[in-house]
Each structure stands twice: as structure tokens, then as C-alpha cells.
């Protein structure tokens, strides 16, 4: 099995499965972490805004600069019981009016333009490595005409941070674990899901040249595979048909060769069995030569058919008027036709693009065939018709015994003869019509034959 360039379907499906479930879990994890963090922030904000209000309240009660002296006392009281809470009050001039011990606030929070309603908590870390979250607001004192002061309050959030980081570790390890697990489960599922493919493979492995009649069972497979199985079965049917034709062909060849070879052998051996006059030898050799010539023609014809079966017959196309070719062939067959008092006529016209030699041969085979089957005094009429549908139709009509319907489709098969007892000599090798059809097919055309009420019509449809 080749590994490079091809990936197993199981691996691919497993990967896709694991990947998609990991993506879903990651999104979910992020969502949970995000909402947890928002929850903590809201909690902190509740505490911070409460304290800010207390501080503002305390500041409102400051009526004079004297009251400022007791302000720290008030503020300290309001902070009682709140561990990790820092507060700072800054006067407009930048003077710090109050600060819890060790309070560190970023400067941005203490700027006087901060507004209460737009207050968003910001997070920072102190020098002592404590994460803080804080807000600030303006507060008016009770002193008349005094500028508002800035109050900033912050709370230590290290316990939240600890919780979040351990939560994240748990979350991501769970996601990783789940990805592995779904990957594994996916792998199992894919293997199970692909089991019908394995079954088909097993079935297909059992089909050999000797068992070409067996088919894959289409009922047992899932709907998705039914079409594939049907296509495979159709392919098998085509193969079976070709295979059968091929073996028929081989046995036909053997049969066709056996008779002349037996004749040759017998005749030669009988001649050799005793001394004869040289005239007799001449006769035997001449008759052998005739027989051998027929054999070699048959071999050449079979080679042509074999090549055309493999699409190796490629027409050398040129524009041809079929009627000209028919007239040329009439000249050739003229003498033979006159011997039998057969009249040859042609009419119509039609130009095609085709291989001159091949098309001549195709028509010649038809004509030779028609001459053989037309009774003395008959008439063979060829008509060429440009149908205008990018097909030129050549039809050859001759009188003669009607051919039974069941024979018609097989007439163009090689070695096929209507009457199996018919004399070999009068009939040729039975390859003429097969060659005609091969030539037509090589041109993308078709040959058809019909026969009724004592008239046989052969039609060649040649694409323009």
C-alpha cells in the first residue's frame, strides 16, 4: 500500500472530528471564563461603589478646613472590616488629603477630570505584587466654593486571580482531554461507519475472471454507497460482456482457422503419401496457396478489428464526397455485377470528413455483401443523403431474402452468419460487416441494417 500522497479516510475523519469538537470546547471554555470574570468584576464594583459613596458622604460632611482634621478618622471607620481595601483622597491641587497605608494608585485614576458615571474599573499591580482593581470619582466637600476632590478606591483581587488561574488550568486540561477522547471516540465511530466499505472490499476481492457473473449486493449497503455499488455492478456487467465477446472471439478464431488448416494438412499429407506427377503437385500447391491467401487475409482482418477494438484505428481525415467513392467502387464491381446482370445505381450527394481508404473499404464490404445476396437481374441502389443534421446517410438497398429480425442486431458481429451451415467459400470469413462497423465507429458514426419484404437496406451514418 502506498502511504505518501494518500491519507486514510479514517485518519482524516478522526482528525476532523477531534478538531471540530476542540473548537467547540474552546469557545465554551472562553465563554465560561469570560462570564466568571465579569461576575467577579461586578462583585468588586458593588463593594467599590459602596465604599466610594461612604467616602463621598464623609466628605460632604466636611464643612470647613477644620473638619479636614477629623476626616481620616471618619474614613478609617468606614473602612473597618474590609481587608485589602485602599482609599485615597486627593485635593484639586494634588495634595493628598487621605490615604490608607501603602496605597498605590496609578496617576490616571487620580486625574481630576474623571467622571463618576463613566467610571470603569482599572486593574493594576502594586510594587508588592498585589493585583488591585479600582475606580475613582469626584466628590464635593461641604466647604463653600471649594473645588471637588478626587476619591479613588481599590480592592485587592488576588484571591479572584488565583481562582481564575486555577480555573483556567482545569478548563484547558479538560478541553485537551476531551479533544483526545472525542478523537478516539470519533475514530471508533468512523471505523464502524466505514465498515460497509470493508464489506464491499471483501466482496470485490472474491470476484475473478471465472466469477464475473457475481455482483456486489446493493441491498446490504447504506444509501450513500448504493449508487457506488450500482456503478461498480454496471462496470462488472460491461466487463463481463466484453470478456464474453473476447472469449467468443477466441473460440471463433480457433474454429475458423481449424477448417482451412485441416484441409491444408490433409491435402498435403495425402499428396505426400505417394509419388505423383508434377501436375498433381502443382495443383495441390496452387490450392494450398489459395487457401493460405485466404487465411492471411483473415489474419489481417482480425488484426484490424483488434486494433479498432483498442481504439488504435485513427482515421486520417480529408473531405470526401461519398458519391464519388461509390462511383469508384461501382467501377471495380462493375464486371462482377454484369456477370450476374445486376444493375448498380447511385444518387444524391454528401460531403463528409473521413479517411478515404477506410470509408471506401467500409462501403466496398457492403457492396460485396449486397452483390452476394442479390438474385440475378436485381438492382442495387445506393443513395447518399446529407440529412442536414451534421450526418450524411449512405443507404444501400438490394433485393434478396429477408433476414429474420433476430439476426439483424448481430449481423455486424464478427464471424456472425445468418445460416450457420452456409458454405464458407461463398461467404468469406464473415468479417466484412464487422470491419465496416469498426470503421464507422472510428469515424464516430454507426452502421445499421434492416430487412423486410424481400428488401435489405444497409445504412451508414457518417458525421460530417
Amino acid at each position: 500500500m502506498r502511504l505518501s500522497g494518500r491519507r486514510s479516510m479514517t485518519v482524516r475523519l478522526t482528525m476532523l472530528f477531534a478538531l471540530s469538537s476542540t473548537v467547540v470546547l474552546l469557545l465554551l471554555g472562553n465563554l465560561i471564563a469570560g462570564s466568571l470574570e465579569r461576575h467577579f468584576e461586578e462583585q468588586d464594583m458593588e463593594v467599590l461603589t459602596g465604599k466610594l459613596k461612604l467616602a463621598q458622604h464623609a466628605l460632604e460632611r466636611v464643612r470647613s478646613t477644620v473638619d479636614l482634621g477629623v476626616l481620616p478618622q471618619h474614613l478609617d471607620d468606614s473602612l473597618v472590616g474590609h481587608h485589602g481595601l485602599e482609599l485615597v483622597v486627593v485635593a484639586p491641587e494634588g495634595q493628598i488629603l487621605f490615604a490608607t497605608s501603602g496605597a498605590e494608585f496609578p496617576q490616571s485614576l487620580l486625574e481630576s477630570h474623571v467622571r463618576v458615571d463613566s467610571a470603569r474599573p482599572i486593574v493594576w499591580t502594586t510594587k508588592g505584587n498585589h493585583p488591585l482593581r479600582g475606580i475613582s470619582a469626584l466628590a464635593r466637600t461641604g466647604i463653600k466654593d471649594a473645588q471637588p476632590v478626587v476619591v479613588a478606591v481599590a480592592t485587592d483581587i488576588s484571591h479572584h486571580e488565583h481562582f481564575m488561574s486555577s480555573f483556567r488550568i482545569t478548563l484547558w486540561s479538560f478541553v485537551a482531554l476531551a479533544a483526545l477522547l472525542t478523537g478516539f471516540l470519533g475514530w471508533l465511530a468512523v471505523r464502524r461507519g466505514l465498515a460497509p466499505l470493508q464489506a464491499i472490499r471483501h466482496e470485490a476481492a472474491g470476484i475473478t475472471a471465472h466469477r464475473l457473473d457475481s455482483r456486489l449486493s446493493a441491498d446490504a449497503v447504506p444509501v450513500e454507497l448504493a449508487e457506488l455499488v450500482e456503478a461498480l455492478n454496471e462496470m462488472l456487467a460491461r466487463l463481463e460482456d466484453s470478456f464474453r465477446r473476447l472469449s467468443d472471439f477466441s473460440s471463433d478464431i480457433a474454429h475458423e482457422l481449424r477448417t482451412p488448416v485441416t484441409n491444408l494438412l490433409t491435402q498435403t499429407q495425402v499428396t505426400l503419401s505417394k509419388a505423383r506427377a508434377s501436375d498433381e503437385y502443382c495443383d495441390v500447391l496452387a490450392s494450398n496457396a489459395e487457401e493460405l491467401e485466404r487465411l492471411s487475409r483473415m489474419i489481417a482482418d482480425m488484426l484490424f478489428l483488434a486494433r479498432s477494438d483498442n481504439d488504435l484505428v485513427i482515421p486520417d481525415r480529408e473531405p470526401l464526397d461519398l458519391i464519388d467513392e461509390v462511383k469508384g467502387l461501382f467501377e471495380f464491381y462493375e464486371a462482377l455485377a454484369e456477370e450476374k446482370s445486376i444493375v448498380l445505381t447511385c444518387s444524391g450527394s454528401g460531403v463528409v470528413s473521413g479517411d478515404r481508404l477506410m470509408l471506401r473499404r467500409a462501403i466496398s464490404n457492403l457492396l460485396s455483401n449486397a452483390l452476394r445476396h442479390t438474385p440475378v437481374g436485381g438492382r442495387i441502389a445506393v443513395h447518399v443523403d446529407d440529412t442536414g443534421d451534421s450526418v450524411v446517410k449512405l443507404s444501400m438497398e438490394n433485393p434478396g431474402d429477408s433476414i429474420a429480425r433476430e439476426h439483424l442486431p448481430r449481423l455486424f458481429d464478427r464471424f456472425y452468419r445468418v445460416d450457420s451451415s452456409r458454405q464458407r467459400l461463398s461467404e468469406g470469413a464473415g468479417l466484412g460487416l464487422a470491419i465496416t462497423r469498426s470503421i464507422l465507429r472510428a469515424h464516430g458514426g454507426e452502421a445499421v441494417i434492416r430487412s423486410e419484404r424481400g428488401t435489405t437496406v444497409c445504412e451508414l451514418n457518417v458525421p460530417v
Partner: protein
Amino acid sequence: MKILVVEDELKTGNFLKQGLLEAGFGVDLARDGDDGLHYALTDAYDLVVLDVMLPGIDGWAVLQGIRKSGKDMPVLFLSARDQVDDRVRGLELGADDYLVKPFAFSELLARVRTLLRRGGKTTESEFLRAANLELDLMRRRVSRSGKRIDLTAKEFALLELLLRRQGEVLPRSLIASQVWDMNFDSDTNVIEVAVRRLRAKMDDGFEPKLIRTVRGMGYVLEASECD
């Protein structure tokens, strides 16, 4: 006229040699490509009959070797495969003609004679004659002992072919291809009928009989004095 035959198949080689010897040619037979090339380069031949499939170097290589050495005698190659590629390749390499196996010996002989005639004198005479038969090419007229004989165009062409190649046995396939342009296996009954009709016109009632059937091979036009 000396011919070199390069053919490894024992029987084919022997028969080719015998047949060509009896046809009046001098023949050397080489059994493989190396010998064949050696013969072709050391001796003077008027024609080479070359099989393509040979032990040692193949027919193509022999052909190339011959052409490379500057020798331009005609080469007729024998191919076992009826492949267009083979033909094209052979003709490109400088072969003059080809025959596909199995072939009729009469066909080979006819081709050999054509090739040998090629390049020879091609003086076109106006009359072709055999015994008391005369063919006037210019006026398309045939007469025997001065008596006019009417022939159809194809009959004239057939007689002209037989006359031009007097004494040669012409196979039916060659006649079909030369006279009717039927360059494929066709109904050879037609040739028989055509020759019979020609004979009826120009041999019946005249002496000597000129056209003779050679069974199993073809037809020959001969003014044989002894008959």
C-alpha cells in the same frame, strides 16, 4: 541484379532466397542484424530485403547503418506488425517500401521489381507491344494483328499494367490497387471476372494466348513462343 536478404526466421529466409534466385536474382542471405549490416557495407547490392525483428541489432539499426554509410540502394522492410508507427518510422529512416507479414511471395516479387526499376530508365514509349498485341498509349487504342479491339477504360488500364510488367506474375491485390485504387483486401472474385472479360476481348480468337493464370499467385502476360 544482386539482392541481400536479412531474415532470421529459418524457413522464411530459405524460401525468400530460393524464390528470388529462381526469379533470376543473385541472393545473399544474412541471419542476423550484425551480419546483415556487414554484408550490406562490404558488398554491392542492388536491393536489401530487411526484416525488422532481428537478433543482434534490429532492422532499424541496420537500415540506419546502411544510410549512414552513404549507400542508397532501395530497402524493402518486412514488418510483422501492421502498425502505422512502424511504417512511418521505416520510411523516415530511409526505407523505400514495406510489406506486412504474412505476405504473398508474388507481392514481394512485384514490389522488388518495382523498386529495382525505379531510378532506372523511364523513357516513356508511345506503344506497348507483346507478340501481335499493340497498345497505343497516346490514342488509347488496342489492336491485335492490326485488328482494333474495343476496351473499357479500366480494361485498358488493366492491360496496360500487364503489358508494362510482361513476364511478371501480378498478384490480384496488386492489380486491384494499381487499376482500381483498392488499397485494401477486397473481393478478389472481381479481378477474376475482370481478367476473364479482358481475355474474352483480346485473347479469344487470337493466337498466341497472352494472358495466363498462375494458380495461387495471379496473372501474367507473356508472349511465350513455344506455346
